């Protein structure tokens, strides 16, 4: 199974409809494929290519540019330790070395049980909480080596409360049909109606 399943296909089609040009949905669709299978399979890229009307090679071209999109299986949990300058100043290197020793892998590697993939990543925008890390893109702040060991134990027991790799936001945008104004295609439409307003004919605005 690697093409999008029927449920995800429906989500994909709803997403594509929010863009004036289907190709714009590529990155969200690649995330969806990753949510389904834990990584982006070649079959999924081919399916996405069909959905947005480009070639599989173009999908691969986009997919291979972005760090979060994995084209090989990774662990259930990506543990991404920040190595940005603020975290570097407050012990990121020591934390990364501790993680390497504890997990027995270098950054980029996955533990033998397939649970954890370790990465040393660039700044993740939690600079005042250094040193920090993300587990499947959920933050852990001011992480000590003791915190890290506890986290690893929780991840191995699946008790850390973190969804498996691939799932990002648990809430999706959803717009009911009657509330959607309609996409603005690049080759349609003139000046929007409200631009003709002037201060004297504005109504009550509510």
């Amino acid at each position, binding site marked *: 199974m690697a093409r999008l399943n029927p449920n995800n296909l429906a989500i994909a089609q709803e997403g594509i409809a929010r863009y004036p040009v289907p190709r714009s949905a590529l990155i969200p669709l690649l995330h969806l494929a990753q949510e389904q299978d834990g990584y982006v399979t070649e079959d999924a890229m081919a399916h996405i290519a069909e959905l947005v009307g480009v070639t599989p090679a173009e999908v691969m071209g986009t997919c291979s540019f972005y760090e979060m999109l994995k084209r090989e299986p990774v662990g259930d949990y990506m543990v991404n330790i920040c190595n940005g300058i603020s975290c570097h100043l407050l012990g990121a290197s020591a934390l990364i070395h501790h993680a390497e020793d504890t997990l027995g892998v270098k950054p980029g590697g996955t533990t033998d049980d397939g649970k954890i993939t370790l990465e040393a990543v660039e700044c993740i*925008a939690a600079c005042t909480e250094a040193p920090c890390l993300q587990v499947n893109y959920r933050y852990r702040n001011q992480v000590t080596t003791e915190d890290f060991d506890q986290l690893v134990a929780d991840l191995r027991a699946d008790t850390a409360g973190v969804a498996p790799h691939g799932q990002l936001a648990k809430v999706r945008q959803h717009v009911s049909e009657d509330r959607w104004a309609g996409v603005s295609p690049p080759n349609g439409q003139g000046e929007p109606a409200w631009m003709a307003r002037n201060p004297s004919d504005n109504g009550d605005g509510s």
Partner: protein
Amino acid sequence: MSAPAPTDLRIITSRFDIEDGHTLAGYERTGGYAGLRRALEMAPADVHGEVRTASLLGRGGAGFPAGVKWGFCPPGVWPRYLVVNGDESEPGTYKDRLLMERDPHQLIEGCLIACYALGLSQCFLYVRGEMAHAQERLAAALNEAYEAGYVGANVLGTEDFSVDITLHWGAGAYIVGEETALIESLEGDRGMPRLKPPYFPASIGLYGKPTIVNNVETLANLPWIVSNGGAAFAAMGADSSTGTRVFAVSGHVATPGVFEVPFGTTTFRDIIFDPRYAGGMRPGRTLKTFIPGGASAPWFFEEHLDLPLEKTTVDQAGSMLGSGAIVVMDDTTDVVKACHNVVRFFARESCGKCTPCREGTSWLEKILCRILSGQGRPQDLDLLMDVCDNISPGIAWPPRQTTICPLGPSAVSPIASALERFRGEFEAYLPATAVAVTTSAGAMS
């Protein structure tokens, strides 16, 4: 003499401490969407006029006046789009994520005001891929706002104002924060910057149409500006840097944090040392250097502490406020390692489109690695500067560039700063024989 006292004035972080400030109920209870209602009573051009009057500078890094940027849309060309730059990734920068997580409706209201003012018929809210919680908060807020009639068809029951906001997210690439790369990414492509000119996507942007790309913090200011008037906004802060600004102070300080302060009048000393803000150095430590505006900015030192956080002053002093990221380093810092850390970032994040950046940043990193491993050669310090000069001729400020975007020249900043001030620390890493050669060569010249 002490600088002007910091104040507790908060405009865009006012809901950060309110438990339900991110929900529609919490937002409405605290005055939310009043700016949008006010805007809808005005002519679109007058809303634009208020933003011009406010002199709101863009908060993403370049600091270009938003009202002026808005004016670059060519007349008569439709549709026009709004793209929100929520790809906050500059090392040290931590404000847009908080604005998205803790006050998502404020950003949505800002988007609606911008769309109304300029006739932008669809908005794309591009959030950094790694920010799962921000994506959730924005999705939930958009779902609420659509159902309540603030977004979508016939906003607030009007017959003529309809605008959709599409939540979009990235997948991990710093370069996508550059606005033309952001547009490429939003079109489903590899996130590589576009050749300039045109310099502003306002003329040719998303799908080749006029596109306004604004930073999250910039847009978050709009509800207040429209509610209170551009003149009231311009009255805060300094003449050339108006309103408030959000700064993250991180690194070797007692109480790192994210602080909204009057723009242009607060000094670096205030924000780094005042107990209400970062609280000074850790006990027993002294300041060695600090980065005033994110990893791309040249470093500042003790003698710069009394400069105000004001765009022109900081530019003229040889650096920039950039994305509001102040990274403080104390006397325990190994500047060669710190320099390598920042350079490695740019080497990793270079998109590879322009040769001077692709090759130059990775060679800079390799040379610094060689120095750090004790294998440095006597000519390596000059070689670093030579590579820098190839990326950014003259190594001046503001930087000249041999590249399409400023990423490459950004890698020059830490090297030029650290080598000029702390050359001895680099030399200390060279093997004893190499140092001897350097010294004798220096004596000969």
